[in-house]
């Protein structure tokens, strides 16, 4: 992609009284992209966002905005706006005053403020709510006000800190689509923080998977899902079977006591590896059709598919998680078939 880089984090570290929250974060964010910082709680994703927003100072490293170092620029001077986790709407102001807050500080002309606030409230489907008190709004409406309050300032970058966390599932899915549409329409760079992998995959152009203050993988949602770089990413993004294996040589791996063809190469001979197989990539066949066999232990109906847990009889034993639209009953002896391109080989993560 030939796009301009708007934010660049170079070797950013953050230390809270001896605990390292961020370790050498290197990350660039392109103009107009929807970038998601994804990871379990405590992985440093919110800290990263707060450093970009100017609410935390990095212990070391540099932060560039359009090529200019902005480490020392206070939050109120940055051309960045934030949608906070719990919205942080001003309770003493009504909807209009909340949204107009930033413009009033910039001493924008009254007529223009009214015009802009009206436009932005239309955009978030809150026309006619100007005079409403914040307390009288539902969670979803407060959410929209928070987004409008940030967007009305026409920031170059919008930071969103788990903005949908407090909403119920249905509303969350609606807002995901709305946010994505808004981002496309307005052409603003979004930096989005979430722990919800589904949200990350469905909304983002780029996903940054973080763990323990380090970046595990950066890539498009499809890359991250199909080609996870390590067992953590594979496990965190969607469900996975992760099993110890040994890479015998290029294109041949041994796991569960059996040999499998695969599409990976470039490992040392007899290197121990993590083998990752997605539950939906395992086919359930008749016992005779595959050397990998097992007994169905549990079946759960999940709506779109069945989730089956199959204990393989091979050595070492492993409990396979399988997603399939075809159900085999509990107690059935089945064969499991795994195609070569469904097998993902990952280097063992030795150092933590």
């Amino acid at each position, binding site marked *: 992609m030939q796009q301009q880089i708007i934010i660049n984090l170079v070797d950013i570290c953050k230390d809270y009284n001896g605990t390292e929250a961020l370790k050498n974060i290197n990350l660039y964010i392109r103009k107009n992209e929807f970038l998601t910082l994804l990871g379990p709680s405590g992985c440093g994703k919110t800290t990263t966002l707060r450093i970009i*927003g*100017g*609410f935390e100072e990095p212990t070391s490293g540099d932060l560039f905005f359009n090529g200019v170092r902005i480490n020392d620029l*206070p*939050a*109120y*001077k940055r051309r*960045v*706006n*934030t949608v*906070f*986790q*719990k919205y*942080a*709407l*001003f*309770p*003493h*102001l*009504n909807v209009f*005053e909340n949204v107009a*807050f*930033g413009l009033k*500080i*910039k001493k924008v002309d009254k007529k223009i403020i009214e015009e802009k606030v009206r436009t932005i409230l239309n955009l978030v489907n809150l026309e006619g709510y100007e005079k409403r*008190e914040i307390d009288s709004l539902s969670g979803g409406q407060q959410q929209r006000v928070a987004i409008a*309050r*940030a967007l009305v*300032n026409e920031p170059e970058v919008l930071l969103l800190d788990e903005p949908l966390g407090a909403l119920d599932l249905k509303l969350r899915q609606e807002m995901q689509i709305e946010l994505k549409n808004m981002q496309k329409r307005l052409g603003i760079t979004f930096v989005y923080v979430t722990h919800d992998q589904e949200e990350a995959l469905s909304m983002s152009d780029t996903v940054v998977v973080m763990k323990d203050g380090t970046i595990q993988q950066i890539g498009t949602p499809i890359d991250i899902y199909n080609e996870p770089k390590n067992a953590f990413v594979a496990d965190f993004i969607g469900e996975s079977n992760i099993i110890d294996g040994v890479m015998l040589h290029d294109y041949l791996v041994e796991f569960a006591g059996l040999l499998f063809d695969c599409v990976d190469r470039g490992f040392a001979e007899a290197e121990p590896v993590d083998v990752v197989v997605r539950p939906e990539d395992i086919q359930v066949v008749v016992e005779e059709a595959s050397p990998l066999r097992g007994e169905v232990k549990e079946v759960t109906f999940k709506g779109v598919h069945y989730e089956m847990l199959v204990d393989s009889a091979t050595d070492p034993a492993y409990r396979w998680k399988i997603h399939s639209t075809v159900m085999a009953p509990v107690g059935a002896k089945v064969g499991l078939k795994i195609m070569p391109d469904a097998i993902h080989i990952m280097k063992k993560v030795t150092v933590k």
Partner: protein
Amino acid sequence: MKKYWASYPYLLWMVIFIFLPLLLVLFYSVTVRTEEGVRFTLEHFQRFMEPIYLKVLYRSVKLAVICTVICLVFGYPMAMVLAGNHFKRKQVMVFLFVMPMWMNFLLRTYAWMTLLERTGLINAFLSWLGLPSLNLLYTEEAVVLGMVYNFLPFMVLPIYSVLSKIDKSLIEAAQDLGADDVTVFRKVTFPLSLPGVFSGITMVFMPAVTTFVISRLLGGGQFTLIGNLIEQQFLVVGDWNFGSAISMVMMLVILISIGVMSKYEKENEGSGLF
């Protein structure tokens, strides 16, 4: 509603010790005892309208207002410092601040007398420096000083408790929208702290306008306040009727001031002062 009976003892308490005495005061204030018996009259209130008494009322309200303003001017920044993150051991700071209140009110006021009097510490210090001694005690300023000293915590604590409950993310949100520190204070912190300010003002103004001990000790009886007047009528002169009438006027003043405060507070709900 089942636990309704639990409030009966308190209701009884209120009737015996608050409601009945109030009725008695009201009764005394509008009656006069003559040879034919008790007769209703408004003459006590009329008497209070005499300039000499109105002057006392004026002085009381004036000193109370001055005291409240000074408490607000000093108390707000103090509350901000206490609520801020400047101290690692905030609890200790609050504790130190509240501790003087454990000492008896009279003791604290007497202590000021020994500090301010002609041979007191301050004048001793001044004469040690070779400066002429000052007339500090028995002045209006001394009375105000005593009031401020005694009532300042009542201003600081409510403001402190409101300030320390303000969500930090609101401050960050304001900064995020382009507000510098001054604007954050003007548009967010101060408007949100108004409930604390109002209750602080009420809690300082009320005891300040009714005090009689501070004015007697530090004012030396020269600055009769309405509290002193009431005290005199009951304990010295023995005119319970007039004393009751003044008490009623006093209550009226307080009720009005509370009314004004709560009206003001409601008007300000939902918008900043600036």
